[in-house]
Structure formats: structure tokens, C-alpha cells
């Protein structure tokens, strides 16, 4: 019995037919198409759905639409007036308050409510007002700046002068390269305005005509055999369009590493973890789809779940997968140099064991996909992914389709951090359901489903042994790591290698031995998460090095300086370091943090700690071997030490009037700013301002292959492709310009939207472009990038960790600890990073700020927990704790002068490497404050208390 009611939204009446049971959020998004208000958790934990009701911010997922009648509802769509951004929106855009943008509408609505009451809020008042809005990208710093400085955009400038200004994240000491116009400019992201207005379309915001909604039925048990599935009742439910089970999906398995494809689209026989997919339905709406799931009858033969990795590898443990003997999915055993000799030569040897935590990326936007088939048999998939090409490749593999028959569209993506790097069951179920129903099918994960799909950070058990000489120089390092992999391989093969291989990139380690064992257990599969495999091993290494430095009486920063990596070095495991300003980052954090005045001199309960780290700037090799082709047809291909096909590819087409350049490159913008830095580098090469660039990165029909946003590869690899494509365009324009300027083509230079001859005469860039079109047709340039041949050594696994370039960074953390309760407050972070030449310093710092808050949260509060039956105990954002704006520290983020010869314009990565120093720095600060080391993550108050008690007795 629908009632027509009128909702007053943004000052306009909206008549809606209400059943009565809809939340305001669902009516806004689904009924009225006001999708600017986001759905991040649907349980009132994340704040992405914040709207104002009579001026008061509320979670619209927790209010019935019927209750909002007669009230004034304000949503993000009403904030900008006549297309002009409101001051708070301008502030978010210009101060770096926006990255993936999924939290932005809610964040802005909360800010508006706050500023309406209090135009000049203090930092504390801002934190109070925004504590209900979670952000996973920015570290809240850009957001705080935006709210604080909103006055500057109101034109009355009231905020900036008031005491309690946001602490500077940079002192302006970094000077960019003056030769460049666009490269090195801290311009706002290209998509910032759309995100600030709630106009950016995420996959879940998109509706296609006749669209059906799909849902997946997850297993309630952690381990069992499916005896019987009866779908008849579900099928009989009015509105249900299709129900599929394991019998209806291809036999072809999918996964990430070709040698370990071990997942079926839906389980064929066994379920391996709670939430493992058993069946899927499509129905006319989400509610019907959910109802249908509850009508599917499944009979299981329950098997005892194996949850502990050490139980899983015990002798008589039953096998979870037939193919993984001893439940070991990946086994690595490497030795470089002579470790025994190295330890014999060491003056100090220390052994310690560390334990990590299973954490989840928790991007604010849960996974979503929409599949539809075109009449010529082309599959079109809209999906929230970090790696559109690998999704396309996996669809080809599972469905036996040529790549040319698959079109992947990546709408705006609300964060990934690795969670969306592999192919998800949504991406595979939606096409099947769409084919059966003949309709587009949309599938969206709830927060819980996303967490049960998993792919978070492996929990690692790390046994370390480190040998140093009397000067603190590393002589030998041995590590044995057990990784709890969960039920499937996912990225796990690479994770296992990364966990060891990356250790020798930061310090000179002459002798190195690593054993890695990835174990299968009945929990959601783990995968790649920011810093892929390395943050926990790096945390453990940093802790151990600091412990030894303290014991030997060497300053922890000094011991790092003595062991620091140097430029142009081949590591003991055959990784080639090019540029390296690691020492400069150590010097800078030491000075800036006041380390010498503080270390060892702080009162009890206050601590300061150092942590360092760095990462690859792009994996040296693609995930699959051989050339791009329909993947299921392939026989096993032998590995060759070179890239078979280019990893990044770009096309630039100049519009016929010469006024804009369309850059087509398949990089995945997931919030990190990929499209913006691509535009900056391409504009630099073209000699035009960024404002004339348009980026088409979202559609595989438009843009050539880019391998995606993983392994911190986009800036370096995509950057080469776009700058080369830009240069190719300029080369084509040169003869035309030369004729117009009466000079030799070789002397023509494109700059500032003009083309210059050596004598200083110039013509407008667009006139040259127009002339080119008139005489020659389309003005197009292409560019591509392949990592150079021969990267890495010849031993098994030598490819993982190879990269054209490596980043370096150091972080100093200051924390206070309540010694009675063990409660930690992270007060201040000082970070310097060597990312080569930053293409956009403001965005580079945004990566640092976000990584610090994420990493600090991982260190002290984040962890997924399971009960004895393998059920997740905290599958939501009130049980799984992500730092709020109130928990985030103050951050100083600096960049050191550096130039990477292998990078475009000297650039390398900053996205993942910034996470790596954080965990160790926090752990050290806590140890420094308390006098005890906690060697298990997360370092909770409880664990600190236990350690303090143990130290006492």
C-alpha cells in the first residue's frame, strides 16, 4: 500500500510513492536518483550517507523516509548554486580534501552543519563535528584544512587567522623543477569538483533501463560439502528472474596468479569459508533478490574448519584443497650470499618472533558491478575495479570470450587499496545472470559481504634473526614467515615472495635467507593490500633493528644511516636500485622532528619512534605471461625475462579545433589521482596547460591497455606512456609549425600553448593543430611503456620485487601512552619521502597523510576476528575500527629532492611506500613510551598492559 508523500529536498518538493519501509537513503538514491548521497555501510557507522534534516546532520540510512516528510532535507546536490561551487566545496577541492570522493558528500554536509552553527570552528570543534564521517584516503588532513580555511573561500577570510590553524603539513622547503609548467604543480584533482558536488558516478550510482539486481548467497559454515541445493522456492518467488548455482557456472577456475587459479565463480562442491559463494539470484529489485536468497535451501555436510595456519600444516590435517599438499599454497626457500658465514662474522645476533594482523582495506565504496550483453555478443561490464584489464582478461578466461568481445567500463571508484585489484565474484556472476535474464544486472556488496569476500592483508607470523657487526652494520638476515592465506590463492603467491624479497631494498644486506610458507585455512582469502605483503615484515624488521640499536647504544636513526641503501646498487637478491635518497629522508626527519632533543629524554608515557620503508614503482613483470590473447587457449608459456607487451599505453587525440587534447589511457583512477597526474605529464609533453586536457580512462573500448592501479605502477609506467604520446603529437606538429614560423622543424618547441622557433617567434598551438588537421586528418599520437628487459635475477621467484625504480621514506612518530590503561594516542607524525620528482606535490602529500592514518590504525586498532567456527566477529565498521578524524595524528609530510632516471620527468611512486615506515614507527614510539615492546599487531591497550605486567614480574 504505497502512499504518495512529498519530500522537501533542497527546497524543492518531490512527490514519492512510499511503501513505508524505505530508508531516506534508499529513497534519495533509488527512487529519486539523487545518488550524491552515498551508501558505505548502511548501518550508521561510516557517515557517507549524511544529509541534513532541518539543518541537522543525520545518517539517512537510519531514518525512514516517511519520517522526513514535512522536514527540510538538504543533500549534496543542493549545495552548489547555479553550477557555482559553495565556499566549502571550493575549500575541499583546493585544499586536498578529496581523493576517492566517496566520503566527500557526507563530509561536506557535516561540515556545512558545523559551519552554519559555528563559522570559525576550532580544530577540536571540527574533529567533534566530523567524527562520524569516515575517510580512508586523506588521513583527514586535507579535510581539516578545508573546513578550517573555508573562510578564505567565503571571501571574508575569517578562519585562517584564528589560533589553532591546521598544523602545516609542509614548510615549503621543497622546490620543484622550474623547467616544467604542469609537472610539479599542486593543482586540484581534475575530478574534484564533480566529487564535491556529488555528481561523480560510482558503479552503484548507475542505473540502466530494465536493470535487474543480483545477490550472492554466502555459506553460513566455514568448511563443508554441498550435498543438495533446492532453488525451487526462490525461483517461484514473484519478481525473481534467475537463480544459479555451481552447476550453472563454467568449470574454468579463476584467480590472480595463472599457476594458482583455484576459485569457481560459484562453489561446485565444497565451501571453504563463511561467506563462500553458493548460489546467486537476479530479481526485479534488491529486496526481492535478498528474499530469494533466504528461500534457497542448502544442505551441507559440515567438515571441521581449519582456522589456525599451524594446525593446517600439521601432519594429519585434512586438506582444504586437494591440490595444495600439506595445505601449503606457496612455498619459498631462498638464500642469497652466505648467511651462516654472515652470522659467524656478526658481533651481535638477535632472534625475535613477530605476529601481524589480518586487516581489511575498507575502501569507502563497497564493490559493485553491472553486466549487460550487447546484441552482437559483446559483454559490457561496469565495475569498481583497480585493474580493468585483468578483469577483462579473467572474463575472457572464464567465459571463453575473445578480449575484443569484452568491454570493461570503470566508473568513478571509491578507493581500493588492493581490495579491488583482483576479479570479484560480482564481476563474474553479473554477466551470467545478465545472459540468463536478458537484462542488465547490477550487483553490489554490502560492507559485510565485502569483508567476507576478503582479500585483506595476510596475517603473518615472522621469525627473524639479524646479525650486526660492532658498528651496527648488517651482516646477515634470516627470516621465516608463515602467511595465513585463507581459502584461496588470490594474490598470495606474489604476497609470499614480496614478504621476503623487498627486505634488501632499504638497507645493504649482504647475506639473506628467506623461507615463506603461505598456508590455506578456512577463512576468506587474503590478497594484496597497500604495500603488498611487505608492511608486516617491514614492521618486524624495523622493530628488530631498533631493539638491537638500543641494546648496542647506537642511535636508531644512526644505525639506519650506516646501513642505508645507495643509488645505483644491485641488491643481494638482484634488484636494481636506481635513484635513492633514503639518507636524505633520515636526515630530514631527524632534524624536523627534533629527534636528538627527544629520543631517550622524554618522560615516561611519552615516546618517539622511527620507522622506514619503501616500495616498487611498478612490478617489473605483468601478472600473466606471454602475450595478450584469449587466455584459455593458451598452453603453458615459458617465462621470458622481458615484457612481451607494453604495460602502459596511451593515445592522444587533439580535437579538430586544436583547443583540447583527449588523453586515452586505461589507468585506473581509484582516488589516488591517476588521471590528474597523467594529464599533468601529458600536458607537459604537449606544451599546453592541463586545463586543455581531457582524460578518457574509464572505458576499454576507448583506451588501450594499462595494467591497472597496483604495485604503485601508474605514475611511472602510465607517465611514460602519456608523455611519449604527447611528444609524438608534438613531433607531428613540428613541420607544420616550422613552415608557419619559417624555421627548421628541429628547432620548434611547444610551450605555454604556443609553438616557438629558436628566434623567439611563435604561433598559437591550436592554430598549428588546426592546420595539421586540415592537411593531414586526425592529429593523434601514441606512446607506450615496457619495463626494460632482463630485470631481476635468475632464481625462482626473482621476478617479484623487480621494478624500474624504488621509493624510500622515513617516518618519526610521537605518541603518548596511558601506562595504567595502555591506551595510545598518536600525537604527531613527521615523514619525508623520496618519490623522485613529485608530479603533483599536494597530491603526493595526500598519499602520505592517508597512508599514515591508515598505517597507524592498522598498528593499534584494526583487525578482523573470527570465532571458533570461522565466523567473522566484526564484519562491520563498528566492530572493525578505522581511525576517525579524532584519532588521526598531526602530520608533517615533506619531500626530499630526488630524480629518478627511469621515471617520467624523474618521478617514482608514493602510494604504497608511504605505508611501510608507519607501522614500525608507531611500534617504536609505543616501546619508547612504555619501555616494553609489543611484538604482535595490533598493539592494543590490552597487549600493552600485558607486556607491562610481564616486564614487571
Amino acid at each position, binding site marked *: 500500500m504505497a502512499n504518495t508523500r512529498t519530500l522537501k529536498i533542497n527546497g524543492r518538493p518531490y512527490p514519492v510513492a512510499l511503501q513505508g519501509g524505505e530508508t531516506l537513503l534508499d529513497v534519495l538514491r533509488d527512487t529519486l536518483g539523487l545518488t550524491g548521497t552515498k551508501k558505505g555501510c548502511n548501518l550508521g557507522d561510516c557517515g557517507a550517507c549524511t544529509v541534513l534534516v532541518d539543518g541537522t546532520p543525520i545518517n539517512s540510512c537510519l531514518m525512514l523516509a516517511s519520517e522526513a516528510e514535512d522536514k527540510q532535507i538538504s543533500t549534496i546536490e543542493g549545495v552548489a548554486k547555479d553550477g557555482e561551487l559553495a565556499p566549502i566545496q571550493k575549500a575541499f577541492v583546493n585544499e586536498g580534501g578529496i581523493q576517492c570522493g566517496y566520503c566527500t558528500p557526507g563530509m561536506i554536509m557535516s561540515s556545512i552543519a558545523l559551519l552554519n552553527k559555528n563559522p570559525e570552528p576550532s580544530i577540536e570543534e571540527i574533529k567533534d563535528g566530523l567524527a562520524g564521517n569516515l575517510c580512508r584516503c586523506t588521513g583527514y588532513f586535507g579535510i581539516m584544512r578545508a573546513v578550517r580555511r573555508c573562510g578564505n573561500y567565503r571571501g571574508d577570510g575569517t578562519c585562517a587567522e584564528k589560533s589553532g590553524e591546521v598544523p602545516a603539513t609542509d614548510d615549503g622547503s621543497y622546490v620543484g623543477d622550474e623547467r616544467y609548467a604542469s609537472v610539479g604543480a599542486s593543482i586540484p584533482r581534475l575530478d574534484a569538483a564533480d566529487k564535491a558536488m556529488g555528481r561523480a558516478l560510482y558503479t552503484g550510482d548507475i542505473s540502466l533501463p530494465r536493470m535487474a539486481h543480483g545477490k550472492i548467497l554466502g555459506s553460513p559454515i566455514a568448511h563443508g560439502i554441498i550435498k543438495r541445493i533446492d532453488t525451487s522456492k526462490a525461483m517461484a518467488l514473484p519478481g525473481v528472474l534467475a537463480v544459479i548455482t555451481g552447476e550453472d557456472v563454467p568449470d574454468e577456475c579463476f584467480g590472480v596468479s595463472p599457476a594458482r587459479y583455484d576459485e569457481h565463480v560459484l562453489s561446485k562442491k565444497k565451501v571453504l569459508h563463511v561467506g563462500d559463494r553458493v548460489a546467486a539470484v537476479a530479481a526485479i529489485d534488491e529486496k526481492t533478490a535478498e528474499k530469494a536468497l533466504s528461500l534457497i535451501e542448502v544442505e551441507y555436510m559440515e567438515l571441521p574448519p581449519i582456522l589456525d595456519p599451524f594446525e593446517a600444516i600439521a601432519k594429519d590435517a585434512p586438506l582444504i584443497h586437494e591440490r595444495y599438499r600439506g595445505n601449503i599454497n606457496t612455498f619459498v626457500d631462498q638464500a642469497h650470499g652466505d648467511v651462516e658465514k654472515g652470522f659467524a662474522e656478526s658481533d651481535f645476533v638477535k632472534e625475535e618472533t613477530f605476529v601481524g594482523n589480518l586487516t581489511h582495506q575498507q575502501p569507502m565504496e563497497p564493490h559493485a558491478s553491472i553486466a549487460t550483453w550487447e546484441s552482437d555478443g559483446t559483454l559490457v561490464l561496469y565495475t569498481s575495479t583497480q585493474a580493468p584489464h585483468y578483469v577483462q582478461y579473467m572474463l575472457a578466461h572464464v567465459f571463453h570470450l575473445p578480449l575484443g568481445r569484452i568491454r570493461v567500463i570503470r566508473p568513478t571508484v571509491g578507493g581500493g587499496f588492493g581490495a579491488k585489484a583482483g576479479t570479484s565474484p560480482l564481476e563474474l556472476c553479473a554477466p551470467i545472470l545478465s545472459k540468463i535474464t536478458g537484462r542488465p544486472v547490477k550487483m553490489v556488496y554490502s560492507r559485510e559481504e565485502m569483508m567476507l569476500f576478503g582479500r585483506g592483508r595476510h596475517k603473518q607470523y615472522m621469525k627473524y634473526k639479524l646479525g650486526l657487526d660492532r658498528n651496527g652494520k648488517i651482516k646477515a638476515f634470516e627470516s621465516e614467515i608463515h602467511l595465513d592465506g585463507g581459502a584461496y590463492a588470490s594474490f598470495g603467491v606474489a604476497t609470499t615472495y614480496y614478504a621476503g624479497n623487498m627486505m634488501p631494498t632499504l638497507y645493504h644486506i649482504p647475506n639473506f635467507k628467506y623461507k615463506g610458507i603461505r598456508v590455506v585455512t578456512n577463512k576468506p582469502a587474503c590478497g594484496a593490500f597497500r604495500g603488498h605483503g611487505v608492511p608486516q615484515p617491514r614492521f618486524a624488521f624495523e622493530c628488530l633493528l631498533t631493539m638491537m640499536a638500543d641494546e648496542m647504544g647506537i642511535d636508531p636513526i644512526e644505525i639506519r644511516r650506516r646501513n642505508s641503501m645507495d643509488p645505483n646498487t644491485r641488491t643481494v637478491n638482484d634488484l636494481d636500485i636506481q635513484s635513492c635518497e633514503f639518507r636524505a629522508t633520515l636526515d630530514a626527519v631527524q632534524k624536523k622532528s627534533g629527534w636528538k632533543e627527544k629520543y631517550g629524554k622524554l618522560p615516561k608515557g611519552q615516546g618517539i619512534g622511527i620507522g622506514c620503508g619503501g616500495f616498487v614503482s611498478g612490478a617489473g613483470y605483468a601478472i600473466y605471461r606471454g602475450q595478450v590473447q584469449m587466455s584459455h587457449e593458451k598452453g603453458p608459456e615459458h617465462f621470458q625475462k622481458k615484457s612481451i607487451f607494453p604495460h602502459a599505453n596511451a593515445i592522444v587525440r587533439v580535437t579538430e579545433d586544436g583547443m583540447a587534447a583527449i588523453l586515452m589511457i586505461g589507468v585506473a583512477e581509484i582516488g589516488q589521482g591517476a588521471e590528474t597526474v597523467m594529464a599533468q605529464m601529458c600536458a607537459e609533453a604537449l606544451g599546453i596547460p592541463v586545463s586543455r586536457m581531457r582524460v578518457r580512462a574509464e572505458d576499454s573500448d576507448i583506451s588501450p591497455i594499462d595494467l591497472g592501479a597496483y604495485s604503485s605502477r601508474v605514475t611511472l609506467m602510465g607517465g611514460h606512456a602519456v608523455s611519449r604520446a604527447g611528444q609524438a603529437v608534438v613531433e607531428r606538429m613540428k613541420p607544420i609549425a616550422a613552415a608557419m614560423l619559417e624555421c627548421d622543424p628541429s628547432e620548434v618547441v611547444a610551450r605555454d600553448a604556443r609553438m616557438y622557433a629558436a628566434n623567439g617567434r611563435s604561433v598559437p598551438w591550436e592554430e598549428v593543430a588546426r592546420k595539421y588537421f586540415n592537411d593531414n586528418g586526425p592529429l593523434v599520437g601514441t606512446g607506450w611503456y615496457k619495463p626494460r628487459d632482463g630485470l631481476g635475477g635468475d632464481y625462482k621467484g626473482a621476478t617479484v620485487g623487480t621494478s624500474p625504480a624504488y621509493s624510500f621514506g622515513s617516518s618519526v612518530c610521537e605518541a603518548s601512552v596511558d601506562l595504567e590503561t595502555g591506551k595510545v594516542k598518536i600525537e604527531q607524525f613527521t615523514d619525508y619521502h623520496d618519490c623522485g620528482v613529485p608530479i603533483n606535490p599536494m597530491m603526493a602529500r595526500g598519499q602520505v597523510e592517508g597512508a599514515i592514518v591508515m598505517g597507524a590504525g592498522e598498528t593499534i586498532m584494526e583487525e578482523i576476528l573470527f570465532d571458533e567456527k570461522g565466523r567473522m566477529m566484526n564484519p562491520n565498521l*563498528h566492530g572493525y575500527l578505522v581511525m576517525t578524524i579524532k584519532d588521526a595524528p598531526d602530520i608533517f609530510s615533506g619531500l626530499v629532492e630526488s630524480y629518478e632516471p627511469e621515471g617520467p620527468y624523474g618521478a617514482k611512486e608514493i602510494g604504497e611506500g608511504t605505508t611501510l615506515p608507519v607501522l614500525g614507527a608507531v611500534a617504536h614510539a609505543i616501546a619508547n613510551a612504555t619501555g616494553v615492546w609489543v611484538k604482535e599487531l595490533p598493539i592494543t591497550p590490552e597487549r600493552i598492559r600485558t607486556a607491562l605486567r610481564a616486564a614487571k614480574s
Partner: protein
Amino acid sequence: MQLVLPDFDVLAADSVETACSMLRAHQGMAQFLAGGTDLLVKMKLRKLMPRYLINVKGIPGLDQINCDGDRLRIGALNTIQAIQSSETVTREIPMLSRAAGVLGTMPIRNLGTLGGNLGNASPSAEFGPPLLVLEASVRCLGQGGERMIPMTEFFLGPGKSALHPDEMITEVHVPTPPNRAKCVYLKHSLRKMDVAMVGAAVLMLLDGDVCRDVRIALGAVAPTPFRARKAEAALRGSKLAGDRAESELLEEVARIGSEESSPIDDLRGAASYRKRIVGMLVKQGLAQTIARARE
């Protein structure tokens, strides 16, 4: 795993009497809807599936806050945020306003109500400990008419209160503490917005250097928020001279308080750790209130 709300009908009540008679008419199948911050979550997670929601937010007069001689009368439909920002509450009983301020997040505080917080009878109900030490009482109305339930008799168990199935909370009466009494509410949680791992309220009345009265209430460490009577008794009437004997006494009181608690192991913390925190918070609460009383 399901997050779409199950089917239900909304019934709008315009008076407490109608609300109660609706509840009676749909006995066992209906729930009051006020803030909805707990109810709708439980419904989305299928922990509750009422056939009817009785929307009580339209009932007039239940969102008042009045100072009525020596007591505050706080209407049950006041939002948490309204209590936090109420000048009257801040002036008369600042502890109450601060307790409101540490409950959840701003958007949640703007929706959730006092009546909902109490009616849920969660062991960690943020208002439990403060209202217990203030010896507040809950006014409710039902078929049997109106009655006042003393706070100390209100909570019966996790999710269970002394409300009859057809009763509705209309008001909370809070006696303003004697002039010289000092009170504090302390909450321990990993993030400020989280549900309390331990909550402790202390009310202290010093008479010179004698503890004339002390009340201690604890939350999230027993099936219900409760008064730590033994700890109180150990302190009441004692001399507090700011000396070593005093600090030893406070230690002892904290220890007794900790022993009175019976927390469970859960996601937020282990029982043993929570017991320790109870002692800590009691000691801190006593020390803070004593210090303020001496100012």
C-alpha cells in the same frame, strides 16, 4: 548479511496513550520507533523483525527539558545531541551533558533519543551510570497508568528493563545533586565514538575532609549498568585527608569496585582487562571528584 529492511508497517502515534494501546494491540509484533539508531540496525541485520513500528516521534511534549525546583525533567524524545547542547543540562548537571557528548557520532546523536538509550537496556547504555549515581527515575505510562521506576530498578538484564510490555518511557526525572557534590562520567573505549568498554560515574559529596556521600555506578561490565554498593560503603563516612591513607583507601575502593564488576570477554576487550579498567576509572573518578570538591 541482509541489509534491506524487512517488511513492516508504520503506525503513527500522536499521544502516549495511543502509542501504548497500539503496542498492546500488536503485542509482541510491534516496537516503538524513536531515533531508530539501534532498532533499524537490528532490523536490517534480522535480529528483530517487528510487524509494526509505532512511530512515537510525533508525540508532542516529550522533547522538553525543564528545571523543576530541585530536579531536571528530561523528555524521553530528546535527542542525545539536544541533551548535550542543552544549556539547562550543562548548567545543572554538566556530567550528563558530557556523557551525551561521548555517545556515538554527531549524526547518531542527532537521531538517537534518551528514551531509546534507556529502553534498549544495553549493558553499555551510556546514560546508565550517570543516571544511576544521580538517582534518577524513569517516568512511564501504560495500561496500568503512570508510574515512576527508580533508575536502580530499571535495568534487569541485557536488553531487559522493568518496563511492562505496554509501557512507554515519557520522561526521566533527575534530582540535581546537592550543591557541593561533584560528579564525573568516565568512559574507556578504543575510539571515542565506540560503545564503552567500561563506563564509570562517580558522585562525591565531601564535608570537610569526610566523605559524606559517594555513589559509584558502572556500565558495560555486568549484565546491566549497576551501582557498586560495596565500593561506596567502603568509602562513605571515611576521612579523606589527602594523605597516604587516603590514596590507599581509594586503591581499596577501586579494587572492591573492580571485584563487584562481572564483565565478559567480547570483541571490545577481555574480561580481565575490563576489570582492571574498572579499578582505574573508579580511582580516577574518585580522585577527580575529590580534587574538585576541595577547590
